[in-house]
């Protein structure tokens, strides 16, 4: 028996070794013409009008197209299913001329009736689907419904008024008031045009909303039959395992360069990076700075950065303490050592912010922005000029958990800022709070004097940054500045893009003069790729198109 056991042990060890050694390197020698994406998870549904999460939208972007799109790698609006567009003089009607000869992947034609069918679908949305967790983008951009549920806006408050066909190849989108920001939003996958035939056939809007708010479609549109006009179409999707896209051979534009795209869900960042190292995926989304360093050090991998599309700032509530005084706010701006914080805690992925808008967003002011370089002496002097007795006592709120992209380590940011403010004539009382334990609602209800906060854009329009924060009076900032409110309203209403950009530049500078907050960082997002992947163009809004990708 003793001998037998020994032999058994040896045999087992041998068989295991043999099993591992005999493993064919199939997952490492990539099949040509296939691009394997390591995503953070599975999409929720493949229907842009029912989801708001990046993982779903990135897949939807491959299958569907909107009237317009973002220029690859930028935010400028370019033609997609519409070839050109023009606003009426009063800015209340926008005529889109549609691309001709385009077909959905179910063979039905794309035309003005199809576009209006989609807008009508969104506008007449069922009451139980109008909540923010399902319809966030429509609510944010078009702001209401034909038949509003309790808590939703109706036609009186909505921006959208209707969609009219003007012949087979043109549509008119009617608005209730002048606003140009919706154009930038139309590039989002949420407003992509789906085949009306397929929507009906596969029952896209039928289903139940559970007591807990989730929509469960009974039809298969959003799970098995998402039909759009995009460069790819869905072949199969097994949740937890893989989602397979294949090239749409009937695509109206240049055909996708890689035939198959496979999206596999890997929620753990570490596991995503290791899968990239072993070649089990060609692309790993969302790397931490530490992971990015690992990827950079590997000769068969490379790192690419998504242009910054967020802002981290130190918020100031002008309703509290001496903060309504402009000189006190300037003193804060001079008293924050922003450069050191960005240099020390962002692993090379932070850019020092001198204004609220990230550089790629139109309206970013290239010159004329007041600069507040760290200067404790000047800060103290300003406080004295404001008639304050030093040190000025302030409460400073910061979250202890849940790092955000623009704030990977909030407590350290706070400590550095508090230290630099204390050198500049302030006395800081720390107010730590849990992001998920009411921190945000505390700020939003106007309880915090100074606070760490930020914003990640929804879509590539300056209104989504500036108007959202400074367009009306809010409890978050507590100021009332009709001059700024008017400027931002005018900017949003301007239909001539060149003029509009100028107005936003003015607003961006004005915000830095009046300092409702002090921005300090815009961060980029790192993704990892295998070196043989070419043509992956980064999108600030995270919605990269895979059709230009070549796996060598």
């Amino acid at each position, binding site marked *: 028996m003793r001998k037998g056991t020994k032999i058994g042990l040896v045999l087992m060890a041998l068989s295991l070794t043999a099993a591992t050694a005999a493993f064919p390197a199939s997952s490492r020698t990539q099949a040509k013409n296939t691009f394997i994406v390591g995503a953070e998870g599975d999409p929720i549904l493949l229907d842009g009008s029912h989801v708001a999460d990046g993982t779903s939208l990135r897949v939807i972007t491959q299958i569907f197209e909107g009237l317009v799109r973002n220029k690859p790698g930028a935010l400028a609006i370019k033609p997609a299913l519409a070839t050109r567009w023009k606003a009426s003089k009063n800015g209340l009607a926008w005529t889109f001329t549609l691309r001709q000869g385009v077909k959905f992947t179910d063979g039905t034609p794309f035309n003005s009736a199809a576009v209006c069918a989609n807008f009508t679908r969104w506008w007449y949305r069922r009451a139980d689907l109008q909540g923010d967790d399902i319809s966030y983008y429509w609510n944010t951009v078009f702001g209401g419904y034909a038949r509003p549920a309790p808590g939703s806006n109706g036609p009186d408050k909505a921006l959208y008024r209707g969609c009219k066909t003007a012949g087979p190849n043109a549509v008119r989108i009617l608005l209730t008031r002048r606003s140009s920001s919706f154009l930038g939003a139309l590039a989002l996958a949420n407003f992509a045009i789906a085949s009306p035939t397929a929507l009906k056939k596969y029952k896209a809007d039928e289903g139940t909303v559970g007591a807990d708010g989730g929509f469960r479609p009974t039809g298969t549109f959003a799970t098995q039959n998402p039909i759009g006009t995009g460069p790819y179409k869905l072949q199969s999707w097994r949740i937890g395992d893989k989602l397979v896209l294949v090239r749409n051979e009937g695509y109206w534009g240049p055909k996708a360069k890689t035939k198959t795209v496979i999206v596999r869900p890997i929620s753990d960042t570490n596991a995503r990076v290791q899968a990239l190292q072993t070649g089990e995926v060609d692309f790993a989304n969302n790397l931490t700075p530490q992971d990015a360093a690992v990827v950079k050090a590997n000769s068969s991998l490379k790192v690419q950065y998504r242009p910054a599309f967020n802002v981290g700032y130190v918020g100031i509530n002008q309703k509290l303490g001496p903060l309504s005084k402009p000189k006190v706010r300037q003193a804060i701006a001079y008293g924050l050592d922003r450069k050191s914080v960005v240099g020390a805690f962002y692993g090379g992925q932070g850019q020092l912010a001198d204004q609220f808008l990230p550089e790629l967003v139109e309206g970013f002011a290239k010159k004329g922005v007041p600069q507040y370089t760290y200067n404790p002496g000047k800060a103290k002097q300003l406080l004295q000029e404001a008639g304050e007795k030093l040190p000025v006592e302030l409460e400073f709120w910061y979250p202890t958990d849940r790092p955000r992209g623009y704030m990977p380590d909030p407590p350290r940011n706070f400590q550095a800022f508090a230290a630099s403010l204390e050198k500049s004539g302030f006395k800081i009382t720390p107010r730590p709070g849990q992001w998920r334990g009411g921190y945000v609602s505390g700020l*939003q209800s106007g309880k915090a004097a100074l606070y760490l906060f930020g914003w990640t854009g929804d879509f590539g329009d300056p209104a989504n940054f500036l108007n959202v924060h400074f367009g009306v009076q809010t409890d978050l900032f507590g100021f009332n500045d009709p001059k700024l409110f008017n400027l931002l309203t005018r900017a949003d209403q301007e239909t001539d893009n060149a003029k509009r950009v100028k107005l936003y530049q003015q607003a961006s500078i004005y915000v830095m003069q009046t300092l409702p907050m002090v921005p300090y960082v815009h961060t980029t997002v790192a993704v990892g790729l295998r070196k043989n992947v070419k043509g992956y163009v980064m999108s600030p809004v995270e919605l990269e198109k895979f059709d230009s990708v070549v796996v060598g």
Partner: protein
Amino acid sequence: MLRFVVRRLVLLIPILLGLSLLIFVWVRALPGTPADALLGERATPQAVAEFRVRYGLDRPIYVQYWAYLKTTLSGELGTSVASHRPVTTEIRDRFPATVELAFAAMIFALAFGLPLGFVAAKRYRSAVDHGSLFLSLIGISIPVFFLAIMLKYLFGVRLAWLPTVGRQDVLVDAEHPTGFYVLDGIVTRNWNAAWDATQHLILPAIALGSIPLAIISRVTRASVLDVQNEDYVRTAHAKGVPPQQVDRRHVFRNALLPVTTIIGLSFGILLSGAVLTETVFAIPGLGSWLKEAIFNHDYPVLQSGIMFLALVFVIVNLIVDVTYGFIDPRVRVS
């Protein structure tokens, strides 16, 4: 025997009821709220209030508990707040992955733990015995996720012998009638898929099986040492039965009894270890699902998911106890 089973099943009711209350309270005691977790920067007081109304979180906690109990008893487990998929569907899709992994880990633990313990006992106080003690200590004390990452790094990244994520290579075409990938490959006679799925199981099974392996080897060793000194073993030796036959027939068999119980208990270790192992190896099972749910404050998933795992644990132990009764009739009598 039947009475024994029925009694145990009836006992399940208060256990599960108490457990449901415990989980319900625990989930709500997690720091933060689902509204803050999901709404992010947009968590204005108004948005948070709306969210609470929609998800029924504004009602008194006993009303919430009662509602939860009622719907659970009707078989309706709710919908995941994060994925919007019904919890029952998620459990159906994910359970096979976890079972397959637990099974593979158990096979690994038994295949190595039993011989190791046996040899250690036979070579009592020799270098082999000390070596096995050392190995067991390592097995128990190394955190599962650490071992998992190390294994992945060595065999996946460095040596490139084994895959590191998922259950199947994405380039392998396979059908999945049962959801148990290795079995699926065999059933559909897709040997390539079965082999591929097996390879995907090796590293996670080793990582997850390390703790049960250590326990099994220690228990086997102790048990063999005990049995060796029993009268019937001495008698067999005295009768002149060849030593190997004594070992096989009298020692090993009897020594296995306590190990059976350990298998049942180890199942709990496997389920809890699956949370980390599945996350590290990106296996879409119940463990990685629960980890995500904690992160997202996904109450329906946490409540039903944990209840489900608890139920499985209790049932597995019941089965083990019953099996034990078959192997050792003395248990039934008592």
